[in-house]
Protein backbone atom coordinates (compact mmCIF):
# COMPACT_ATOMS: atom_id res chain seq x y z
CA UNK A 1 0.00 0.00 0.00
CA UNK A 2 2.99 2.27 -0.28
CA UNK A 3 3.09 2.77 -4.01
CA UNK A 4 1.84 6.25 -4.71
CA UNK A 5 2.06 8.02 -8.00
CA UNK A 6 4.46 10.89 -7.63
CA UNK A 7 2.38 13.59 -9.23
CA UNK A 8 -0.68 12.71 -7.19
CA UNK A 9 1.38 12.92 -4.05
CA UNK A 10 2.73 16.34 -4.91
CA UNK A 11 -0.69 17.65 -5.85
CA UNK A 12 -2.29 16.56 -2.60
CA UNK A 13 0.62 17.79 -0.54
CA UNK A 14 0.21 21.18 -2.17
CA UNK A 15 -3.42 21.23 -1.09
CA UNK A 16 -2.57 20.52 2.48
CA UNK A 17 -0.87 23.24 4.45
CA UNK A 18 1.43 22.76 7.43
CA UNK A 19 0.62 19.38 8.97
CA UNK A 20 2.74 17.29 6.63
CA UNK A 21 5.84 19.40 6.97
CA UNK A 22 5.71 19.06 10.73
CA UNK A 23 5.18 15.34 10.87
CA UNK A 24 6.55 13.74 7.72
CA UNK A 25 5.97 10.14 8.87
CA UNK A 26 2.31 10.49 9.64
CA UNK A 27 0.34 8.39 7.12
CA UNK A 28 -1.97 10.84 5.48
CA UNK A 29 -5.52 9.51 5.22
CA UNK A 30 -6.40 12.09 2.60
CA UNK A 31 -3.66 11.18 0.15
CA UNK A 32 -5.21 8.98 -2.53
CA UNK A 33 -3.35 5.84 -3.51
CA UNK A 34 -4.12 5.64 -7.21
CA UNK A 35 -2.37 2.31 -7.82
CA UNK A 36 -4.51 0.71 -5.16
CA UNK A 37 -7.61 2.36 -6.57
CA UNK A 38 -6.80 0.91 -9.99
CA UNK A 39 -6.24 -2.53 -8.50
CA UNK A 40 -9.58 -2.40 -6.68
CA UNK A 41 -11.24 -1.30 -9.91
CA UNK A 42 -9.81 -4.33 -11.74
CA UNK A 43 -11.06 -6.61 -8.96
CA UNK A 44 -14.48 -4.98 -9.21
CA UNK A 45 -14.64 -6.18 -12.80
CA UNK A 46 -14.97 -9.76 -11.55
CA UNK A 47 -18.28 -8.69 -10.03
CA UNK A 48 -19.42 -6.59 -12.97
CA UNK A 49 -18.55 -8.96 -15.84
CA UNK A 50 -21.10 -11.67 -14.97
CA UNK A 51 -23.74 -8.94 -14.56
CA UNK A 52 -22.81 -7.45 -17.92
CA UNK A 53 -23.01 -10.89 -19.51
CA UNK A 54 -26.50 -11.38 -18.10
CA UNK A 55 -27.73 -8.10 -19.51
CA UNK A 56 -26.30 -8.47 -23.03
CA UNK A 57 -27.36 -12.09 -23.36
CA UNK A 58 -30.89 -11.24 -22.29
CA UNK A 59 -31.14 -8.82 -25.22
CA UNK A 60 -29.84 -11.07 -28.00
CA UNK A 61 -31.52 -13.32 -30.51
CA UNK A 62 -30.43 -16.99 -30.41
CA UNK A 63 -28.35 -16.63 -33.60
CA UNK A 64 -26.34 -13.74 -32.12
CA UNK A 65 -25.10 -15.93 -29.28
CA UNK A 66 -21.86 -17.62 -30.39
CA UNK A 67 -18.33 -16.48 -29.52
CA UNK A 68 -17.45 -15.36 -26.02
CA UNK A 69 -20.92 -13.97 -25.44
CA UNK A 70 -19.45 -10.60 -24.43
CA UNK A 71 -20.28 -8.83 -27.69
CA UNK A 72 -23.06 -6.28 -27.65
CA UNK A 73 -26.34 -7.37 -29.26
CA UNK A 74 -26.67 -6.02 -32.81
CA UNK A 75 -30.31 -5.27 -32.19
CA UNK A 76 -31.95 -5.52 -28.80
CA UNK A 77 -34.66 -8.15 -28.66
CA UNK A 78 -37.02 -7.01 -25.92
CA UNK A 79 -39.44 -9.84 -26.67
CA UNK A 80 -37.18 -12.11 -24.59
CA UNK A 81 -38.53 -10.43 -21.50
CA UNK A 82 -42.14 -10.84 -22.58
CA UNK A 83 -41.51 -14.52 -23.28
CA UNK A 84 -39.77 -15.09 -19.95
CA UNK A 85 -42.58 -13.18 -18.24
CA UNK A 86 -45.20 -15.68 -19.41
CA UNK A 87 -43.04 -18.84 -19.31
CA UNK A 88 -42.18 -18.42 -15.62
CA UNK A 89 -45.55 -16.91 -14.65
CA UNK A 90 -43.39 -14.04 -13.44
CA UNK A 91 -46.08 -11.89 -11.78
CA UNK A 92 -47.26 -14.80 -9.66
CA UNK A 93 -43.74 -15.88 -8.68
CA UNK A 94 -42.90 -12.27 -7.83
CA UNK A 95 -46.03 -11.94 -5.73
CA UNK A 96 -45.27 -15.19 -3.89
CA UNK A 97 -41.67 -14.18 -3.19
CA UNK A 98 -42.76 -10.71 -2.09
CA UNK A 99 -45.42 -12.13 0.18
CA UNK A 100 -43.09 -14.67 1.76
CA UNK A 101 -40.31 -12.10 2.21
CA UNK A 102 -42.49 -9.37 3.72
CA UNK A 103 -44.30 -11.86 5.94
CA UNK A 104 -41.06 -13.39 7.12
CA UNK A 105 -39.37 -10.08 7.87
CA UNK A 106 -42.34 -8.72 9.83
CA UNK A 107 -42.93 -11.90 11.81
CA UNK A 108 -39.20 -12.29 12.47
CA UNK A 109 -38.75 -8.73 13.76
CA UNK A 110 -41.77 -8.94 16.06
CA UNK A 111 -41.32 -12.44 17.48
CA UNK A 112 -37.56 -12.82 17.56
CA UNK A 113 -36.91 -9.50 19.28
CA UNK A 114 -39.61 -10.25 21.83
CA UNK A 115 -38.17 -13.66 22.65
CA UNK A 116 -34.70 -12.16 22.90
CA UNK A 117 -35.98 -9.46 25.27
CA UNK A 118 -37.58 -12.00 27.57
CA UNK A 119 -34.39 -14.07 27.56
CA UNK A 120 -32.00 -11.14 27.97
CA UNK A 121 -33.86 -9.77 30.99
CA UNK A 122 -34.18 -13.16 32.68
CA UNK A 123 -30.79 -14.69 32.01
CA UNK A 124 -30.34 -15.32 35.75
CA UNK A 125 -33.34 -17.66 35.72
CA UNK A 126 -32.66 -21.25 34.80
CA UNK A 127 -35.59 -21.59 32.39
CA UNK A 128 -34.56 -18.65 30.22
CA UNK A 129 -30.89 -19.45 30.30
CA UNK A 130 -31.70 -22.99 29.19
CA UNK A 131 -33.91 -21.57 26.46
CA UNK A 132 -31.06 -19.39 25.24
CA UNK A 133 -28.72 -22.33 24.83
CA UNK A 134 -31.50 -24.46 23.35
CA UNK A 135 -32.02 -21.91 20.57
CA UNK A 136 -28.31 -21.25 20.03
CA UNK A 137 -27.52 -24.97 19.75
CA UNK A 138 -29.72 -25.11 16.65
CA UNK A 139 -27.13 -22.99 14.83
CA UNK A 140 -25.09 -26.13 14.41
CA UNK A 141 -27.83 -28.37 13.05
CA UNK A 142 -27.43 -28.66 9.28
CA UNK A 143 -30.65 -28.33 7.36
CA UNK A 144 -30.50 -31.71 5.56
CA UNK A 145 -31.01 -33.63 8.79
CA UNK A 146 -34.40 -32.04 9.44
CA UNK A 147 -35.29 -31.57 5.77
CA UNK A 148 -37.05 -34.87 5.18
CA UNK A 149 -39.19 -34.87 8.37
CA UNK A 150 -40.08 -31.17 7.95
CA UNK A 151 -41.46 -31.85 4.50
CA UNK A 152 -43.73 -34.62 5.85
CA UNK A 153 -44.81 -32.45 8.74
CA UNK A 154 -45.68 -29.38 6.69
CA UNK A 155 -47.62 -31.56 4.28
CA UNK A 156 -49.64 -33.12 7.11
CA UNK A 157 -50.34 -29.74 8.70
CA UNK A 158 -51.38 -28.20 5.36
CA UNK A 159 -48.43 -25.80 5.54
CA UNK A 160 -46.80 -26.82 2.25
CA UNK A 161 -47.49 -23.28 1.00
CA UNK A 162 -46.43 -19.65 1.40
CA UNK A 163 -47.63 -19.46 5.00
CA UNK A 164 -45.56 -22.53 5.84
CA UNK A 165 -42.47 -20.90 4.34
CA UNK A 166 -43.02 -17.75 6.41
CA UNK A 167 -43.25 -19.81 9.61
CA UNK A 168 -40.21 -21.92 8.74
CA UNK A 169 -37.98 -18.94 7.91
CA UNK A 170 -39.06 -17.24 11.13
CA UNK A 171 -38.27 -20.35 13.16
CA UNK A 172 -34.96 -21.15 11.43
CA UNK A 173 -33.72 -17.58 11.73
CA UNK A 174 -34.43 -17.56 15.47
CA UNK A 175 -31.09 -19.08 16.54
CA UNK A 176 -28.93 -16.48 14.89
CA UNK A 177 -31.21 -13.55 15.62
CA UNK A 178 -31.51 -14.39 19.33
CA UNK A 179 -27.73 -14.40 19.46
CA UNK A 180 -27.52 -10.90 18.00
CA UNK A 181 -30.52 -9.40 19.79
CA UNK A 182 -29.69 -10.72 23.26
CA UNK A 183 -26.18 -9.27 23.14
CA UNK A 184 -27.62 -5.91 22.12
CA UNK A 185 -30.48 -5.85 24.65
CA UNK A 186 -28.13 -6.64 27.51
CA UNK A 187 -26.22 -3.46 26.71
CA UNK A 188 -29.38 -1.35 27.19
CA UNK A 189 -29.44 0.01 30.75
CA UNK A 190 -32.21 -1.38 32.96
CA UNK A 191 -32.88 2.03 34.55
CA UNK A 192 -34.89 3.14 31.53
CA UNK A 193 -37.37 0.32 32.00
CA UNK A 194 -37.47 0.63 35.78
CA UNK A 195 -38.47 4.26 35.53
CA UNK A 196 -41.32 3.37 33.18
CA UNK A 197 -42.42 0.48 35.41
CA UNK A 198 -42.59 2.75 38.48
CA UNK A 199 -44.75 5.09 36.44
CA UNK A 200 -47.21 2.23 36.05
CA UNK A 201 -46.31 0.89 32.62
CA UNK A 202 -46.61 -2.86 32.05
CA UNK A 203 -43.70 -4.97 30.80
CA UNK A 204 -45.63 -5.29 27.56
CA UNK A 205 -45.80 -1.56 26.94
CA UNK A 206 -42.21 -1.15 28.09
CA UNK A 207 -41.17 -3.57 25.36
CA UNK A 208 -43.15 -1.90 22.61
CA UNK A 209 -42.67 1.72 23.65
CA UNK A 210 -39.09 1.68 24.90
CA UNK A 211 -37.16 -1.43 23.91
CA UNK A 212 -38.43 -2.07 20.40
CA UNK A 213 -37.64 1.47 19.21
CA UNK A 214 -34.19 1.25 20.82
CA UNK A 215 -33.57 -1.92 18.84
CA UNK A 216 -33.72 0.14 15.61
CA UNK A 217 -30.18 -0.58 14.35
CA UNK A 218 -30.44 -4.25 15.26
CA UNK A 219 -33.85 -4.49 13.62
CA UNK A 220 -32.33 -3.05 10.46
CA UNK A 221 -29.55 -5.65 10.44
CA UNK A 222 -31.84 -8.56 11.17
CA UNK A 223 -34.42 -7.27 8.71
CA UNK A 224 -31.90 -6.93 5.86
CA UNK A 225 -30.33 -10.35 6.40
CA UNK A 226 -33.73 -12.01 6.72
CA UNK A 227 -34.98 -10.26 3.61
CA UNK A 228 -31.99 -11.42 1.51
CA UNK A 229 -32.35 -14.95 2.78
CA UNK A 230 -36.11 -15.30 2.29
CA UNK A 231 -35.98 -13.67 -1.14
CA UNK A 232 -33.15 -15.80 -2.54
CA UNK A 233 -33.58 -19.11 -0.77
CA UNK A 234 -34.00 -22.07 -3.06
CA UNK A 235 -33.79 -25.20 -0.95
CA UNK A 236 -36.74 -24.64 1.38
CA UNK A 237 -39.26 -23.76 -1.37
CA UNK A 238 -37.90 -26.68 -3.39
CA UNK A 239 -38.68 -29.24 -0.73
CA UNK A 240 -41.66 -27.68 1.04
CA UNK A 241 -43.94 -26.28 -1.67
CA UNK A 242 -46.21 -28.77 -3.37
CA UNK A 243 -48.50 -26.53 -5.43
CA UNK A 244 -46.80 -25.07 -8.53
CA UNK A 245 -48.87 -21.90 -8.17
CA UNK A 246 -47.06 -21.18 -4.89
CA UNK A 247 -43.59 -21.23 -6.45
CA UNK A 248 -41.13 -18.45 -5.64
CA UNK A 249 -38.71 -16.68 -8.01
CA UNK A 250 -35.66 -18.96 -7.52
CA UNK A 251 -37.89 -22.01 -7.85
CA UNK A 252 -39.44 -20.60 -11.03
CA UNK A 253 -35.94 -20.28 -12.53
CA UNK A 254 -35.14 -23.85 -11.58
CA UNK A 255 -38.25 -25.29 -13.18
CA UNK A 256 -37.84 -23.00 -16.17
CA UNK A 257 -34.23 -24.08 -16.61
CA UNK A 258 -35.24 -27.72 -16.71
CA UNK A 259 -37.86 -27.21 -19.38
CA UNK A 260 -36.44 -24.56 -21.66
CA UNK A 261 -32.71 -24.70 -21.18
CA UNK A 262 -31.92 -24.36 -24.86
CA UNK A 263 -33.07 -20.78 -25.29
CA UNK A 264 -30.35 -18.80 -23.51
CA UNK A 265 -31.59 -15.27 -24.25
CA UNK A 266 -35.03 -15.94 -22.81
CA UNK A 267 -33.49 -17.74 -19.84
CA UNK A 268 -31.17 -14.80 -19.16
CA UNK A 269 -34.04 -12.33 -19.50
CA UNK A 270 -35.81 -14.38 -16.89
CA UNK A 271 -32.76 -14.36 -14.56
CA UNK A 272 -32.45 -10.63 -14.96
CA UNK A 273 -36.08 -10.10 -14.06
CA UNK A 274 -35.68 -12.28 -10.98
CA UNK A 275 -32.56 -10.35 -9.88
CA UNK A 276 -33.88 -6.90 -10.72
CA UNK A 277 -36.23 -6.14 -7.80
CA UNK A 278 -33.57 -6.62 -5.11
CA UNK A 279 -30.90 -4.96 -7.28
CA UNK A 280 -33.08 -1.85 -7.68
CA UNK A 281 -33.85 -1.72 -3.98
CA UNK A 282 -30.16 -2.17 -3.23
CA UNK A 283 -29.17 0.61 -5.60
CA UNK A 284 -31.21 3.06 -3.56
CA UNK A 285 -30.60 1.62 -0.10
CA UNK A 286 -26.94 0.66 -0.64
CA UNK A 287 -25.30 2.77 2.05
CA UNK A 288 -27.92 1.74 4.55
CA UNK A 289 -27.73 -1.98 3.71
CA UNK A 290 -23.97 -2.11 4.09
CA UNK A 291 -23.88 -0.16 7.34
CA UNK A 292 -26.67 -2.36 8.67
CA UNK A 293 -24.80 -5.55 7.90
CA UNK A 294 -21.55 -4.13 9.26
CA UNK A 295 -23.23 -3.31 12.53
CA UNK A 296 -24.56 -6.84 12.77
CA UNK A 297 -21.07 -8.23 12.34
CA UNK A 298 -19.26 -5.99 14.79
CA UNK A 299 -21.80 -6.06 17.60
Amino acid at each position, binding site marked *: MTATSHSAERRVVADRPVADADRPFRPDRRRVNWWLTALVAVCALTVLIPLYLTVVTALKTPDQLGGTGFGLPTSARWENFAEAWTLTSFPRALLNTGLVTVGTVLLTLVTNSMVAYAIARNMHRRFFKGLYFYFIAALFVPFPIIM*LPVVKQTAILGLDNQLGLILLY*TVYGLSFNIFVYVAFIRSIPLELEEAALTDGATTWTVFWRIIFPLLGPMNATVGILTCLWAWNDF*MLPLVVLSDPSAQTLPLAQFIFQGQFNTNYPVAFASYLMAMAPLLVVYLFAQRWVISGV*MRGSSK
Partner: protein
Amino acid sequence: MSTHVSGPRTRMRPERRAPRVFYLMVLPALALFAVFHTVPLLTGMFFSLTNYAGYGEWSFVGLRNYVNLFGDDRIYGAYGFTFLFAIVSTVAVNIIALSIAIALNGRIRFKTGFRGIFFIPNILSILIVGYVFNYLFSNSVPAIADALGITSLTTSILASADTAWIGVVILSVWQAAAFNIIIYLAGLQTIPTELYEAAALDGASPWKQFTSITFPMIGAFFTINMVLSLKNFLQVFDQIVSLTAGGPGTSTESISLLIYRGGFQGGEYGYQTANAVIYLFVIIAISFIQLRVLQRREASF
Protein backbone atom coordinates in the same frame (compact mmCIF):
# COMPACT_ATOMS: atom_id res chain seq x y z
CA MET B 1 -22.26 -12.32 15.14
CA SER B 2 -20.82 -11.35 18.46
CA THR B 3 -18.57 -13.81 20.20
CA HIS B 4 -19.77 -13.11 23.68
CA VAL B 5 -22.69 -11.61 25.52
CA SER B 6 -21.58 -8.32 26.94
CA GLY B 7 -23.15 -5.43 28.79
CA PRO B 8 -24.26 -4.96 32.35
CA ARG B 9 -25.43 -8.08 34.11
CA THR B 10 -29.14 -8.27 34.67
CA ARG B 11 -29.82 -7.45 38.28
CA MET B 12 -31.31 -10.11 40.53
CA ARG B 13 -34.93 -9.34 41.23
CA PRO B 14 -36.61 -10.19 44.53
CA GLU B 15 -39.30 -12.49 43.08
CA ARG B 16 -38.21 -16.03 42.16
CA ARG B 17 -40.35 -16.56 39.06
CA ALA B 18 -40.29 -14.20 36.13
CA PRO B 19 -43.45 -12.14 35.59
CA ARG B 20 -45.92 -14.15 33.54
CA VAL B 21 -45.66 -11.74 30.61
CA PHE B 22 -42.13 -12.95 29.87
CA TYR B 23 -43.41 -16.50 29.48
CA LEU B 24 -46.13 -15.25 27.13
CA MET B 25 -43.43 -13.57 25.06
CA VAL B 26 -41.43 -16.74 24.51
CA LEU B 27 -44.07 -19.45 24.42
CA PRO B 28 -45.43 -18.97 20.86
CA ALA B 29 -41.95 -18.93 19.34
CA LEU B 30 -40.82 -21.76 21.58
CA ALA B 31 -43.79 -23.88 20.50
CA LEU B 32 -43.13 -23.20 16.82
CA PHE B 33 -39.43 -23.90 17.25
CA ALA B 34 -40.12 -27.20 18.99
CA VAL B 35 -42.62 -28.25 16.32
CA PHE B 36 -40.57 -27.25 13.28
CA HIS B 37 -37.05 -27.83 14.49
CA THR B 38 -36.77 -30.17 17.46
CA VAL B 39 -39.53 -32.59 16.48
CA PRO B 40 -38.14 -33.04 12.93
CA LEU B 41 -34.66 -33.48 14.38
CA LEU B 42 -35.86 -36.24 16.70
CA THR B 43 -38.05 -37.78 13.98
CA GLY B 44 -35.04 -37.84 11.69
CA MET B 45 -32.91 -39.55 14.31
CA PHE B 46 -35.70 -42.07 14.88
CA PHE B 47 -36.14 -42.90 11.19
CA SER B 48 -32.39 -43.30 10.78
CA LEU B 49 -32.88 -46.54 12.71
CA THR B 50 -35.48 -47.85 10.24
CA ASN B 51 -35.56 -48.95 6.62
CA TYR B 52 -38.26 -46.38 5.77
CA ALA B 53 -38.28 -45.49 2.08
CA GLY B 54 -40.27 -42.28 2.54
CA TYR B 55 -43.54 -44.07 1.80
CA GLY B 56 -45.19 -47.40 2.63
CA GLU B 57 -44.19 -49.88 5.31
CA TRP B 58 -41.10 -49.69 7.47
CA SER B 59 -39.44 -51.66 10.21
CA PHE B 60 -36.58 -51.25 12.66
CA VAL B 61 -33.16 -52.15 11.42
CA GLY B 62 -31.13 -50.97 14.41
CA LEU B 63 -27.80 -49.51 13.44
CA ARG B 64 -27.64 -51.24 10.08
CA ASN B 65 -27.97 -47.96 8.16
CA TYR B 66 -24.99 -46.57 10.02
CA VAL B 67 -22.92 -49.67 9.38
CA ASN B 68 -23.81 -49.61 5.69
CA LEU B 69 -22.81 -45.96 5.40
CA PHE B 70 -19.22 -46.92 6.06
CA GLY B 71 -19.11 -49.30 3.15
CA ASP B 72 -20.78 -46.97 0.66
CA ASP B 73 -18.52 -45.52 -2.02
CA ARG B 74 -21.04 -42.87 -3.00
CA ILE B 75 -21.07 -41.55 0.58
CA TYR B 76 -17.27 -41.45 0.65
CA GLY B 77 -17.33 -39.66 -2.68
CA ALA B 78 -19.76 -37.04 -1.38
CA TYR B 79 -17.76 -36.47 1.80
CA GLY B 80 -14.51 -36.30 -0.14
CA PHE B 81 -15.85 -33.73 -2.58
CA THR B 82 -17.61 -31.68 0.11
CA PHE B 83 -14.51 -31.44 2.29
CA LEU B 84 -12.16 -30.67 -0.57
CA PHE B 85 -14.55 -28.01 -1.77
CA ALA B 86 -15.25 -26.55 1.68
CA ILE B 87 -11.61 -26.31 2.75
CA VAL B 88 -10.38 -24.79 -0.51
CA SER B 89 -13.29 -22.34 -0.62
CA THR B 90 -12.90 -21.31 3.03
CA VAL B 91 -9.21 -20.56 2.58
CA ALA B 92 -9.73 -18.81 -0.75
CA VAL B 93 -12.66 -16.73 0.37
CA ASN B 94 -10.89 -15.52 3.49
CA ILE B 95 -7.68 -14.58 1.69
CA ILE B 96 -9.58 -12.77 -1.05
CA ALA B 97 -12.07 -11.07 1.25
CA LEU B 98 -9.38 -9.90 3.67
CA SER B 99 -7.23 -8.53 0.84
CA ILE B 100 -10.11 -6.66 -0.73
CA ALA B 101 -11.29 -5.38 2.65
CA ILE B 102 -7.82 -4.02 3.40
CA ALA B 103 -7.69 -2.38 -0.02
CA LEU B 104 -11.15 -0.90 0.50
CA ASN B 105 -10.02 0.43 3.85
CA GLY B 106 -6.93 2.02 2.28
CA ARG B 107 -6.45 5.41 0.74
CA ILE B 108 -8.49 4.87 -2.40
CA ARG B 109 -11.00 6.96 -4.28
CA PHE B 110 -14.69 6.04 -4.72
CA LYS B 111 -14.69 3.98 -1.51
CA THR B 112 -18.45 3.84 -1.06
CA GLY B 113 -18.99 3.04 -4.71
CA PHE B 114 -16.55 0.13 -4.64
CA ARG B 115 -18.01 -1.19 -1.41
CA GLY B 116 -21.40 -1.09 -3.06
CA ILE B 117 -20.14 -3.08 -6.04
CA PHE B 118 -18.37 -5.72 -3.98
CA PHE B 119 -21.49 -6.36 -1.94
CA ILE B 120 -23.69 -7.01 -4.98
CA PRO B 121 -23.04 -10.79 -5.17
CA ASN B 122 -24.46 -11.16 -1.69
CA ILE B 123 -27.88 -9.86 -2.72
CA LEU B 124 -28.23 -12.19 -5.70
CA SER B 125 -29.67 -15.70 -5.60
CA ILE B 126 -26.87 -18.27 -5.88
CA LEU B 127 -29.08 -20.44 -8.03
CA ILE B 128 -29.48 -17.74 -10.66
CA VAL B 129 -25.87 -16.59 -10.49
CA GLY B 130 -24.97 -20.25 -10.92
CA TYR B 131 -26.81 -20.42 -14.23
CA VAL B 132 -24.92 -17.37 -15.46
CA PHE B 133 -21.59 -18.87 -14.37
CA ASN B 134 -22.57 -22.10 -16.05
CA TYR B 135 -22.80 -20.15 -19.31
CA LEU B 136 -19.48 -18.43 -18.61
CA PHE B 137 -17.67 -21.71 -17.98
CA SER B 138 -19.29 -23.66 -20.80
CA ASN B 139 -19.30 -21.02 -23.55
CA SER B 140 -17.38 -17.83 -22.80
CA VAL B 141 -14.22 -19.22 -21.23
CA PRO B 142 -13.68 -21.91 -23.93
CA ALA B 143 -14.28 -19.28 -26.63
CA ILE B 144 -11.73 -16.92 -25.08
CA ALA B 145 -9.24 -19.76 -24.58
CA ASP B 146 -9.73 -20.74 -28.21
CA ALA B 147 -9.00 -17.22 -29.40
CA LEU B 148 -5.91 -17.00 -27.22
CA GLY B 149 -4.72 -20.50 -28.13
CA ILE B 150 -4.83 -21.91 -24.59
CA THR B 151 -5.76 -25.48 -25.48
CA SER B 152 -6.21 -26.71 -21.90
CA LEU B 153 -9.22 -24.41 -21.41
CA THR B 154 -10.96 -24.87 -24.76
CA THR B 155 -13.30 -27.45 -23.27
CA SER B 156 -15.53 -26.49 -20.34
CA ILE B 157 -14.02 -27.16 -16.93
CA LEU B 158 -17.47 -28.33 -15.88
CA ALA B 159 -17.37 -31.16 -18.40
CA SER B 160 -14.46 -32.96 -16.76
CA ALA B 161 -14.80 -34.88 -13.51
CA ASP B 162 -11.33 -33.68 -12.47
CA THR B 163 -11.94 -29.95 -12.85
CA ALA B 164 -15.68 -29.46 -12.29
CA TRP B 165 -15.14 -28.84 -8.57
CA ILE B 166 -12.99 -25.81 -9.41
CA GLY B 167 -15.99 -24.23 -11.11
CA VAL B 168 -18.05 -24.77 -7.97
CA VAL B 169 -15.29 -23.17 -5.88
CA ILE B 170 -15.11 -20.11 -8.15
CA LEU B 171 -18.87 -19.53 -8.05
CA SER B 172 -19.08 -20.06 -4.28
CA VAL B 173 -16.13 -17.81 -3.51
CA TRP B 174 -17.48 -15.11 -5.82
CA GLN B 175 -20.75 -15.12 -3.95
CA ALA B 176 -19.48 -15.58 -0.39
CA ALA B 177 -16.62 -13.05 -0.57
CA ALA B 178 -19.12 -10.18 -0.47
CA PHE B 179 -20.36 -10.88 3.03
CA ASN B 180 -16.89 -11.69 4.35
CA ILE B 181 -15.54 -8.41 2.97
CA ILE B 182 -18.16 -6.48 4.92
CA ILE B 183 -17.35 -8.32 8.13
CA TYR B 184 -13.61 -7.73 7.69
CA LEU B 185 -14.25 -4.06 6.92
CA ALA B 186 -16.21 -3.79 10.15
CA GLY B 187 -13.24 -5.35 11.92
CA LEU B 188 -10.67 -3.11 10.26
CA GLN B 189 -12.57 -0.02 11.33
CA THR B 190 -12.23 -0.98 14.98
CA ILE B 191 -8.43 -0.60 14.73
CA PRO B 192 -7.29 2.82 15.97
CA THR B 193 -5.22 4.63 13.30
CA GLU B 194 -2.72 5.72 15.98
CA LEU B 195 -1.35 2.18 16.00
CA TYR B 196 -0.33 2.50 12.35
CA GLU B 197 1.09 5.95 12.93
CA ALA B 198 3.25 4.62 15.74
CA ALA B 199 4.34 1.66 13.64
CA ALA B 200 5.19 3.92 10.72
CA LEU B 201 7.30 6.08 13.02
CA ASP B 202 9.18 2.95 14.07
CA GLY B 203 9.74 2.22 10.39
CA ALA B 204 7.62 -0.95 10.23
CA SER B 205 7.04 -2.22 6.69
CA PRO B 206 3.46 -2.63 5.43
CA TRP B 207 3.78 -6.41 5.75
CA LYS B 208 5.08 -6.05 9.30
CA GLN B 209 2.17 -3.73 10.07
CA PHE B 210 -0.23 -6.30 8.69
CA THR B 211 1.17 -9.23 10.68
CA SER B 212 1.63 -7.38 13.95
CA ILE B 213 -1.26 -4.92 13.97
CA THR B 214 -3.99 -5.65 11.44
CA PHE B 215 -4.23 -9.40 11.72
CA PRO B 216 -4.11 -9.69 15.51
CA MET B 217 -6.60 -6.83 15.93
CA ILE B 218 -9.21 -8.49 13.74
CA GLY B 219 -8.68 -11.95 15.25
CA ALA B 220 -12.27 -12.31 16.40
CA PHE B 221 -13.55 -11.38 12.95
CA PHE B 222 -11.20 -13.89 11.35
CA THR B 223 -12.48 -16.61 13.69
CA ILE B 224 -16.08 -15.79 12.88
CA ASN B 225 -15.49 -15.74 9.15
CA MET B 226 -13.56 -19.01 9.18
CA VAL B 227 -16.16 -20.86 11.25
CA LEU B 228 -19.16 -19.48 9.35
CA SER B 229 -17.57 -20.02 5.93
CA LEU B 230 -16.62 -23.60 6.59
CA LYS B 231 -20.01 -24.38 8.12
CA ASN B 232 -21.84 -22.81 5.16
CA PHE B 233 -19.61 -24.41 2.54
CA LEU B 234 -20.05 -27.83 4.11
CA GLN B 235 -23.76 -27.40 3.37
CA VAL B 236 -23.23 -26.48 -0.31
CA PHE B 237 -26.35 -27.16 -2.36
CA ASP B 238 -27.70 -24.36 -4.63
CA GLN B 239 -24.29 -23.80 -6.23
CA ILE B 240 -24.13 -27.41 -7.35
CA VAL B 241 -27.71 -27.69 -8.51
CA SER B 242 -27.25 -24.71 -10.81
CA LEU B 243 -23.72 -25.42 -12.00
CA THR B 244 -23.12 -29.14 -12.37
CA ALA B 245 -26.13 -30.97 -10.89
CA GLY B 246 -23.57 -33.17 -9.15
CA GLY B 247 -21.85 -34.22 -12.35
CA PRO B 248 -20.04 -35.24 -14.38
CA GLY B 249 -21.00 -38.63 -12.93
CA THR B 250 -21.13 -38.02 -9.19
CA SER B 251 -17.86 -36.05 -9.05
CA THR B 252 -19.44 -32.90 -7.59
CA GLU B 253 -22.18 -34.50 -5.52
CA SER B 254 -22.17 -32.82 -2.10
CA ILE B 255 -23.50 -34.38 1.09
CA SER B 256 -26.59 -32.13 1.05
CA LEU B 257 -27.33 -33.00 -2.56
CA LEU B 258 -26.90 -36.71 -1.89
CA ILE B 259 -29.26 -36.58 1.10
CA TYR B 260 -31.80 -34.65 -0.97
CA ARG B 261 -31.60 -36.99 -3.93
CA GLY B 262 -31.42 -40.28 -2.06
CA GLY B 263 -34.02 -39.23 0.48
CA PHE B 264 -36.59 -37.69 -1.85
CA GLN B 265 -36.11 -39.44 -5.14
CA GLY B 266 -34.19 -42.61 -4.33
CA GLY B 267 -36.44 -44.19 -1.70
CA GLU B 268 -33.59 -44.06 0.84
CA TYR B 269 -35.31 -41.94 3.46
CA GLY B 270 -34.10 -43.96 6.45
CA TYR B 271 -30.64 -44.51 5.06
CA GLN B 272 -30.01 -40.89 4.05
CA THR B 273 -31.33 -39.68 7.39
CA ALA B 274 -28.65 -41.80 9.03
CA ASN B 275 -26.20 -40.07 6.71
CA ALA B 276 -27.62 -36.72 7.87
CA VAL B 277 -27.16 -37.65 11.54
CA ILE B 278 -23.49 -38.47 10.92
CA TYR B 279 -23.24 -35.21 9.00
CA LEU B 280 -24.67 -33.35 12.01
CA PHE B 281 -21.99 -34.75 14.29
CA VAL B 282 -19.27 -34.01 11.76
CA ILE B 283 -20.36 -30.36 11.48
CA ILE B 284 -20.65 -29.92 15.24
CA ALA B 285 -17.25 -31.52 15.82
CA ILE B 286 -15.54 -29.41 13.18
CA SER B 287 -17.14 -26.16 14.35
CA PHE B 288 -16.04 -26.78 17.92
CA ILE B 289 -12.49 -27.80 17.01
CA GLN B 290 -12.20 -24.77 14.77
CA LEU B 291 -13.53 -22.42 17.45
CA ARG B 292 -11.16 -23.78 20.07
CA VAL B 293 -8.10 -23.70 17.86
CA LEU B 294 -8.82 -20.26 16.46
CA GLN B 295 -9.74 -18.74 19.80
CA ARG B 296 -6.59 -20.09 21.40
CA ARG B 297 -4.62 -18.50 18.58
CA GLU B 298 -6.50 -15.26 19.14
CA ALA B 299 -5.65 -15.29 22.82
CA SER B 300 -1.96 -15.92 22.22
CA PHE B 301 -1.44 -12.57 20.53
